[in-house]
């Protein structure tokens, strides 16, 4: 997607949404045309892979990164206890062991998780990786200086809520035990069957205490992965990674590490990135991007060019764009009004505004339409392709708004094509047909984030989006619909203020399950049930379409991240 303004682009990354931050994810295409691209010749080691990105790798400290599955570029340097499966499509949404020998051994009703490290793991300087280093790495992420990661460790580990990190609290976190150099045990305050997913995040990267330089660590983090940082300029704008000779492929089944060198150049305008990838000249022939989609304009051009179209990788990342209601604000306290709006939306024009049917798919469920999320199709308030204004009017009449209704839709002013004015305008146009007059309230991005995530200032109707911290219903539903996660004096994500005992109980029940397939099914069913309350109007799921250079081979796109995994890419 095109973000013409740096502001918009940066804020999109920095603000609430999620994961997309910091060179996130990779996952496989459904219709896997991409894997065939590199099939004609076997991928070889060697060469330099160029990464052309819009967003600099500003945070390169494993404690500060907020990634889904360990990120794309960071995952070349940081190994974690577990990691995402580097396979195409749905298989890529599974969690697999990385530093550990398995994905974790639960006990005591999934409140205690034990991991054993593989033997012979080394840092870039040849020193061995120990379980204490992993513990230290996690502890640092609690330091205020190194904030930024996901909230789960704080919420799940016993004593996590009060721990202030190793700089202030030398004693450490008792709920992580390291009985020996290869074993690490986590004690959680409640059952969490999805702990193996969490262990893919960069906070589970080993950090040698002796090498820790606090906020300066990100300038040269110590590598445990196949590449080490040899250059980090301008706050992550230019990164050069070279082979870490102490990394051994025999301990790492996931990362292929074909290129000898990775050259990351970021801070580029998105249209320039796509121009360069399509021109595919010189070093750009061996270039990929991990954060820039094809924009609608470029898509129009690419779709007419077969050679170019063959160099597009398509993927899906668990992500939903939706309209959110605040039922405390009139008239959205009336379910009929919320339903009427659900009927009235025109998903076709919304999708066009978001870049067209190739870049967005209509959504009627809150959960992404992927198996790992336990996708259970439903459409409680069928609006068809372009809205059902008649039904909406009927409902409004029932709700007492015979002569139509006037409401305000709050959106962000940044041009992210997600919560941006373009989408809001499309909705405004559609709701007009149902006799609903929409007044647009565009806020500057920081203002927008402040307002929609504060229980005190949350507007009645606004555009929002949510993405997956890992491919499961848990991190998708719990923060938004778990009544115990309503935050009164801080960032609140339960924007519908839903505090339903049965929903809360079901969330607890699913968290106890360690069979992730079974859990997925139950998440899907819960989503369908919550959907009846019409607290959100799902609009669309984005589709990732990314160009890569003509010499790039071995394209792997998993459903976990939706973009090509650069640990698999070869340029020879």
């Amino acid at each position, binding site marked *: 997607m095109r973000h013409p303004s740096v*502001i918009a682009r940066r*804020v999109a990354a920095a603000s609430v949404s999620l994961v997309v931050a910091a060179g996130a994810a990779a996952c496989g295409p459904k219709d896997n045309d991409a894997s065939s691209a590199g099939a004609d010749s076997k991928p070889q080691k060697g060469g330099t892979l160029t990464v052309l990105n819009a967003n600099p790798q500003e945070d390169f400290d494993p404690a500060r990164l907020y990634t889904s599955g360990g990120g794309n570029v960071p995952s070349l340097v940081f190994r974690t206890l577990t990691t995402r499966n580097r396979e195409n499509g749905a298989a890529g949404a599974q969690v697999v062991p990385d530093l550990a020998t398995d994905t974790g051994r639960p006990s005591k009703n999934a409140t205690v998780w034990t991991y054993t490290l593989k033997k012979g793991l080394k840092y870039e300087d040849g020193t061995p990786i120990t379980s204490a280093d992993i513990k230290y790495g996690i502890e*640092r992420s609690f330091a205020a200086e190194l904030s930024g990661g996901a909230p789960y460790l704080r919420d799940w580990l016993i004593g996590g809520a009060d721990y202030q*990190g190793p700089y202030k609290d030398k004693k450490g976190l008792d709920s992580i035990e390291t009985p020996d150099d290869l074993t690490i045990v986590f004690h959680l305050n409640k059952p969490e069957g999805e702990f193996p997913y969490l262990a893919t995040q960069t906070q589970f990267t080993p950090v040698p205490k002796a090498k820790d330089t606090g906020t300066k660590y990100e300038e040269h983090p110590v590598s445990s992965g196949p590449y080490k940082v040899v250059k980090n300029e301008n706050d992550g704008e230019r990164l050069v990674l070279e082979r870490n000779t102490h990394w051994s492929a025999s301990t790492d089944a996931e990362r292929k590490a074909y290129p000898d060198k990775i050259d990351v150049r970021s*801070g580029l*305008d998105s249209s320039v990135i796509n121009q360069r990838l399509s*021109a595919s000249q010189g070093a750009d022939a061996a270039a990929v991007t991990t954060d820039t989609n094809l924009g609608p304009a470029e898509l129009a051009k690419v779709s007419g060019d077969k050679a170019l179209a063959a160099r597009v990788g398509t993927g899906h990342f668990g992500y939903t764009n939706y309209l959110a209601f605040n039922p405390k604000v009139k008239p959205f306290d009336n379910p009929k009004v919320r339903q009427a709006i659900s009927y009235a939306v025109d998903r076709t024009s919304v999708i066009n505004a978001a870049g067209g049917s190739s870049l967005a798919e209509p959504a009627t469920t809150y959960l992404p339409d992927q198996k790992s999320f336990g996708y259970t199709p439903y459409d409680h308030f069928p609006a068809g392709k372009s809205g059902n204004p008649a039904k909406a009017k009927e409902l409004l009449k029932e709700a007492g708004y015979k002569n139509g209704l006037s409401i305000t839709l709050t959106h962000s002013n940044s041009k992210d094509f997600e919560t941006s004015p373009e989408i809001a305008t499309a909705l405004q146009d559609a709701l007009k047909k149902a006799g609903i007059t929409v007044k647009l309230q565009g806020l500057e991005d920081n*203002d927008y984030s402040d307002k929609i995530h504060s229980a005190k200032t949350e507007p009645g109707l606004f555009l929002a989006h949510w993405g997956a911290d890992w491919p499961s219903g848990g991190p998708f539903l719990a923060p938004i619909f778990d009544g115990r996660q309503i935050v009164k004096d801080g960032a609140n994500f339960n924007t519908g203020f839903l505090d339903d005992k049965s929903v809360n109980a079901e969330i607890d029940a699913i968290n106890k399950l360690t069979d992730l397939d079974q859990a997925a099914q139950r998440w899907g069913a819960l989503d369908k049930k919550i959907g009846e309350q019409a607290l959100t109007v799902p609009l669309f799921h984005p589709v990732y379409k990314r160009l890569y250079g003509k010499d790039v081979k071995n394209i792997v796109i998993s459903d976990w991240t939706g973009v090509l995994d650069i640990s698999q890419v070869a340029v020879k």
Partner: protein
Amino acid sequence: MSALKGLSGSLAGFPGFALRRLVGAVVTLFAISVIIYLVFYVAPGDVAQITCGPRCSPAQVHQVAEQLRLDDPLYVRYWHFLQGVFVGQDYSTGTSVQHCGAPCLGVSYQSGQQVTQLIWAKLPVTFSLVLGAMVLWLILGVGTGVLSAWRRGRFTERALTAVTLAGTATPVFVIGLVLMIVVCGQLQLLPFPQYVPFTEDPEQWAWNLLLPWLSLALIESAKYARLTRSSMLETLAEDHVRTFRAYGVGERSIIGRHALRGAVAPVIALSANDFGSAIGGAVLSETLFGLPGLGRELVHAVTVVDLPVVVGMVLVTGFFVVLANAVADVLFAVADRRVVLS
């Protein structure tokens, strides 16, 4: 009488001038920093929340706020900033305490880096962009201006006027993008711009920046063409040109030696000024061409409410604007020695 010889004449008042300008600059920069503190005080965006990350708990946000001293009253924070500027300040990286020597503009909330270091990293980029573009636009602009003053009233002049106006009328993000698509993408004459430090490879430095330079020059040269032309025409109407005509000096010599000389002072003054404002206004082109300069960094810092970086960057760009203005006046006085600095 001899005190008036040569340069010393026009620069006779220089020490006093420099002192007054220096005091003025300090006052200006001081005022700018106060304004920015006030603006950020009222601006939306919870700094601690943004710095901490979206999913931080209120307790964590509070810790971050405490660590960044965000809970202090505004005047205390500003005083702290001033202390940094004049005596330096200490800051913690978590594992150790670092000293940021005066003039210390603080430490970035986001990256924990010293702002002065950030500025030193970005400055060469912006300088490269602006300086190169300036050379080009001076050549293009003054050349066009001379030509149209010479061929005044004829077709050449009208054609040149139209072309230069076309430059003025087009925003850089349109010219730049179209040029990039055509020249770099389709014709592949130039590489897509990326910043190569001059110290690393001067040739690549220039080669990579050529397109941004050209785009900026196309837009800016119009102004210079117009200024050169009108200054020259004005000089041509002056009495001393009449003198040389009355002494049989040819038109070519009058244009080249006398009229053009009259245009030098205003052109120099304008370019010094433009240099200052281009340093501050490079954000558009830096964004478009993906050059990691001051302007882009500033915009980013604004969006993430990274106050120390914003203050630092604005002070630096402001400093260049103020400096450039003073330099413009000095150069003007040097170029036009009838002028006295004050």
